[in-house]
């Protein structure tokens, strides 16, 4: 029953993909060659003019180009021509650094705030104001104070991934079941040990959910941030290829951004499952 459902869903997915690729192919395929045209003009305009080819690349063009990229992902021909693997690695490294820094700040701070009603009330207005600020709005300030575009991008990642983690940690810690706390109290468990043996495991699923939201946001923001700061990274690659008018590369980059984002989400989802306990 269940496996047949999965099988049927898989078949439908494949059919949808095939339909999408088919329509894409049909919409972008070459029409009959335009005959009357001066040879110079034809040379200037390339295939678009000579064979009536659409400016939008078809799935076969993208596939061929993707294969090229996959064959040599790590080449480096100077600042404007690097393999996609290198560009993705830069982006992932920035997201990883900013995200880890955010984890190191958000989780201990969230613990403190969640355990102390006073801190919780006192810091609430700040969090409420800071949380809705678009992370990119920080960019000029970061560039001005840090004076390093790469570090600024990391800072932007840090600032955008901190809020979901902080709020979820606060919420998770503050809403640990009273009876579990009471168990620790009747056993005279000290504050530190209680934090690690009761509050942390009890709040872990909520905290991990926050971390999962954060990594998603961080991956969304890095593309925009790299378009702004330039130099390296998948966001810069997209912008650079747009300036080169290489829509094929843009489409490939979009696809890869989606896949990496999905993988990051899956990794966090797995961690979440590891700490989730059935009640």
């Amino acid at each position: 029953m269940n496996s047949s459902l999965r099988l049927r869903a898989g078949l439908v997915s494949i059919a949808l993909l095939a339909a999408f690729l088919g329509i894409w192919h049909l919409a972008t395929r070459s029409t009959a060659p335009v005959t009357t045209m001066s040879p110079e003009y034809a040379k200037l305009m390339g295939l678009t003019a000579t064979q009536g080819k659409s400016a939008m690349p078809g799935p076969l063009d993208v596939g061929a180009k993707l294969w090229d990229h996959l064959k040599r992902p790590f080449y480096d021909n100077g600042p404007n021509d690097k393999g996609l693997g290198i560009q993705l690695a830069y982006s992932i490294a920035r997201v990883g650094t900013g995200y880890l820094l955010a984890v190191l700040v958000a989780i201990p701070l969230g613990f403190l705030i969640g355990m102390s009603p006073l801190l919780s009330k006192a810091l609430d207005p700040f969090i409420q104001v800071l949380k809705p600020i678009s992370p990119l709005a920080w960019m000029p300030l970061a560039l001005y104070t840090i004076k390093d575009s790469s570090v600024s991008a990391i800072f932007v990642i840090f600032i955008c991934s901190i809020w979901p983690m902080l709020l979820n940690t606060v919420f998770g810690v503050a809403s640990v079941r009273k009876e579990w706390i009471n168990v620790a109290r009747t056993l005279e468990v000290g504050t530190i040990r209680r934090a690690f043996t009761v509050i942390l495991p009890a709040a872990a699923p909520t905290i991990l959910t926050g971390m999962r939201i954060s990594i998603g946001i961080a991956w969304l923001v890095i593309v925009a941030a790299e378009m702004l700061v330039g130099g390296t990274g998948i966001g810069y690659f997209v912008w650079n290829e747009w300036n080169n008018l290489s829509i094929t590369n843009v489409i490939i980059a979009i696809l890869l951004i989606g896949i990496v984002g999905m993988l990051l989400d899956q990794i966090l989802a797995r961690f979440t499952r590891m700490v989730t306990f059935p009640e």
Partner: protein
Amino acid sequence: MTDKFVSIEGIAKRYPGAGGATTTIFENLWLSMARGEFCCVIGHSGCGKTTVLNILAGLDAPSEGAVIVDGQAISGTSLDRAVIFQSHALLPWRTVLGNVAYAVSSKWRSWDRAKVKAHAQTFIDLVGLTGSEYKRPSELSGGMKQRVGIARALSITPKMMLMDEPFSALDALTRGTLQDEVRRICLETGQTAFMITHDVDEAIYLADKIFLMTNGPGAVLAEVVENPLPRDRARTDLHRHPLYYALRNHIIDFLVARSKTFVAETPDHDPRNVPLVHIGKPGLTIASGSEEQRQTWTPGTNPGLSA
């Protein structure tokens, strides 16, 4: 009764109510228990039983008054007073063994893993959960969870056990078995026990003394009923005891009728000297018709069993 192991001295609990007023759940409550005594509290829902138990446990502080245990006023919780929670309160991310071991290692911080495990295992065996050590609470039945709670409470070898309706969520059969076990363990280890229950027969089977509380708000401890049944009693034979029905009727009578009107009808009630009721001892008896005390059990007549 000279040995007061536990003494609750004039405690009150008030909560801020609507519009700046305060709601008094109870006040000037006095109560004492001897070492090794098993006491049950019976009263209607919301009268403040859990509040009293939480104050005894140190989980909650009284608005007034003090609790003395073993000659010392308590401040906060203690490993000497173990609590068995109504909702079992097991840590769901730990196994059965993990839950009991958590308590053991909290009491004996310096013990190594093996020693903690061996000690925890003894108590898991004691409550009959051998073989389920590595199950998580979600894989256990209600009765098994409650057993883990009992094992956890006993494993720290407390001086006193506090139980808040520990069996109320269980089916009759499981409840009966666990009552037997708790009774046996408490007698064997000489525990002083304080148990809240809604089940009159449970109180009669387990208790040496039964505290009757009136309805809240402003609940008072109306009577302390001494259980006339011998300490050596069997659950199945309870109703054969000549004083069983007198005792049972006295309690039910209180719950049905007198708990509502007690405060109004007894203006000279002294909370410091709560009447001690000896069922079946002429002269000291209060209430519940005297013919019932002379009642002897005859086969075939089982009045009140369906009550």
